[in-house]
């Protein structure tokens, strides 16, 4: 029980990751697979930020009002997630452009039908 209480906030991130993984493994429509990749990226970024969380913490920005470094959440995962979000966006943009060209060439987005390359 204590395990669930302490780690409940990680459950959400991993739920997103698993839903995304399930979509990528099982669905055939290319756009759905790309959405699945986006979900996995979102889930992983959320997980990274959550590792830095402190209960009742504040943002790691000093201002003239609040100057207590002990109450601040960890700034490093936030920097990592900045990078990871940009990388995720780049992969999605490239994937969508490939989907546009695939649709133009094959006329369908069903991955089971896009099998020009044989063994």
């Amino acid at each position, binding site marked *: 029980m204590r395990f669930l209480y302490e780690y409940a906030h990680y459950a959400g991130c991993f739920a997103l990751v698993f839903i995304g*993984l399930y979509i990528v493994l099982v669905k055939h429509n290319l756009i759905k697979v790309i959405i699945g990749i986006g979900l996995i990226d979102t889930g992983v970024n959320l997980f990274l930020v959550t590792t830095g*969380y402190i209960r009742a913490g504040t943002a790691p920005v000093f201002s003239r009002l609040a100057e207590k470094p002990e109450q601040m959440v*960890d700034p490093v995962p936030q920097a990592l997630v900045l990078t990871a979000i940009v990388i995720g966006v780049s992969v999605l943009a490239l994937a969508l452009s490939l989907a546009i*060209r695939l649709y133009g060439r094959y006329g369908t987005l069903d991955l089971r039908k896009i099998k020009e390359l044989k063994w």
Partner: protein
Amino acid sequence: MRKLISLVLLLVVAVGIGMSLSGGPFGAEGERDGPHFRRDQVNFGRYYVHEGVQETGAVNIVSSVVVGYRGLDTLGEVTVLFIAATGLGMVLHLRAAGRVEDGREPASLVLFTGCRFLFPLILLFGTYVFVHGHLTPGGGFQGGAVIASAFLLVYLGCRERRLNERALGVTESVSGVVFVVVGLIGLAFCGAFLLDFLPRGTAYLLFSAGIIPVLYLAIGFKVGSELGAIIDKLAERAK
């Protein structure tokens, strides 16, 4: 069949993650409350939060981490976005040339005027976000994304307007070169790439924090123009 295998696989992975999370203190929260809180161990978060303002001069600790302590990562990130924009341009390059307007109705007067009115305000907000990146939450990437959303608004609202592709390309290249050159200046004169060679100044002022505002300027322009180029390429209708 495939569904069953995927579910079993995911279950195994979930059990593995659970095992990993429960062994010992995990995350910043665990670090704080757990009995294993060791002061002598290296811990990035605590170190940056305590020493950050004094070492980099930036009040926003995330900015000092992103540009100061981990500047090479940010250079890599900017490069990834550049690769995406270039790759997208390359993949969509060979589509039938010529933009065929296929009879979309032109925007109504209210929409058109509203978008034209909002466009400079959004640009202003985006610029504010990245210029003040070292003082308030924000920074180059966030500001650049807001600027790109202004371009998207113009595409969606005022439908016949187009961006000047050449200008976008030049802005992209020049900002990228500026970033690398600033780093190399640090290498040439002070011994380490991306060294902070401008004066730190006093905290909370606009002109403080060494090279962080300069780099954020370059990043803001680069990200804004790159995302704008991606939107431009994707919005071309081809037949």
